[in-house]
C-alpha cells in the first residue's frame, strides 16, 4: 500500500471466535477450529491475576491440539526491554514467548499485555506449523520486565491445528478482563 493507491479491503479476514479469561484458569483455549481458512490470526490483550506485591515473572505461552510434548516446539525472538536489545531461542514443550505478562499490582491495574500472532497454513497435514508474533507491554515505568518483542515459532508436527491454547506459566490465571480473538484468513 503506497501513497496514492486505493486502500486495501481485506474482505477475507473473518472472525471465528472470542474467548475471555475466567479468573480461575491459566489457560484460554479455542477448540474445534474449522479447516476452511488458509491462515489464522490471534489478537489478544491479557493480564495475570497474580499480585505478590512485586512485578511478577510469569510468562505467556501457546500450544496446539493440547500437545505439550517436550522438544516439539521452538522459538526465536528479538526484543527490547527498555534498555537493551536482545535475542534468544529455545526448544520447549510449548511455544513459549518468554514475555512477562502484566500482573495485578495496583499500578498495573489498568494495563494489559497485548499481541498479534499469525499461524500460517494451520490446516496442512504435511507441514510443520510456524507462527510469527508481535507482543508488547508498556506501563510508563522503568522495568526490564516490560518488553516489545518479535518472535517466530515452530511446532514440529504435521497434524492440522484444530485447537489453540494460550497459557500462563509461573503462577496466576487469566483475569476475567482478558480477551483473545481468533480470526481466519481465506486463501484464493
Amino acid at each position, binding site marked *: *500500500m503506497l501513497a496514492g493507491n486505493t486502500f486495501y479491503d481485506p*474482505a477475507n479476514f473473518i472472525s471465528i471466535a472470542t474467548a475471555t479469561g475466567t479468573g480461575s484458569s491459566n489457560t484460554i483455549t479455542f477448540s474445534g477450529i474449522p479447516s476452511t481458512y488458509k491462515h489464522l490470526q490471534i489478537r489478544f490483550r491479557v493480564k495475570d491475576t497474580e499480585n505478590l506485591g512485586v512485578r511478577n515473572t510469569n510468562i505467556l505461552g501457546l500450544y496446539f491440539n493440547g500437545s505439550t510434548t517436550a522438544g516439539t516446539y521452538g522459538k526465536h525472538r*528479538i526484543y527490547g526491554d527498555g*534498555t537493551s536489545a536482545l535475542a534468544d531461542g529455545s526448544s520447549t514443550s510449548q511455544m513459549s514467548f518468554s514475555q512477562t505478562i502484566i500482573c495485578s499490582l495496583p499500578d498495573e491495574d489498568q*494495563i494489559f499485555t497485548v499481541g498479534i500472532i499469525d499461524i500460517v497454513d494451520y490446516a496442512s497435514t504435511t507441514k510443520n506449523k510456524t507462527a510469527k508474533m508481535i507482543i508488547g507491554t508498556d506501563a510508563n515505568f522503568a522495568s526490564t520486565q516490560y518488553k516489545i518483542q518479535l518472535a517466530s515459532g515452530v511446532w514440529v508436527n504435521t497434524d492440522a491445528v484444530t485447537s489453540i491454547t494460550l497459557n500462563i506459566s509461573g503462577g496466576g490465571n487469566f483475569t476475567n478482563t482478558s480477551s483473545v*480473538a481468533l480470526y481466519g484468513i481465506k486463501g484464493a
Partner: protein
Amino acid sequence: MPATYEPIATTTLSSSATSYTFSSIPSTYTDLVLVVAGTFTNTNSGGNLRLNGDTGTNYSTTALRGTGTTVYATRSINRSFIAGNEDGSSSGPWIFIWNINNYANASTYKTVLVRASDAGAYVSETAGLWRSTSAINSITFITFDPGISSGTTLTLYGIKAA
C-alpha cells in the same frame, strides 16, 4: 458472512500538513488499525500518535529499533504522544502500521503496537501506552518538524471480533 476487517475512512493529503485527525470514530469495532504510507518534508521528522486530542504527558513507549548498522532498545515515559519511530532520521518513504487494541473500552488504559518501516533508514516495533480509560473516538497522526508530505495516504480500519 459479515465483514470483520473494514475500512472506516481513508484520505490522501493534497498538501503538506503537520497532522491529520480521524474523528467521530464509531465504537462498534474491537480493534483499530491505522496505516500511514508516505514521506515527511524533513529528515528530522518522526511519526507520532495522539488520542482524543490529549496533549497531556499521558503516553509512554517501549521500543526496539534497527537502523541497518545498530539495533537498540528505548523507553520513554510521561510523554505527550506515542512516538512511532522514536527519532526521525529519514524523510522516507515509510509505512507506519498502528494496531490500537480494545479502543472502545471505557475502563482500562489503551495499548498500541506500531511498526514503523523505512527500508532506506530503519525499522522499529513499539508498544505504546495511553494512560486514559476513555474510549478512543479520535486519532491524530502528527509530526513536529515540520510536516507530512502531500500524497501521504492514511487509512483507518476497524476489526470486529465475534
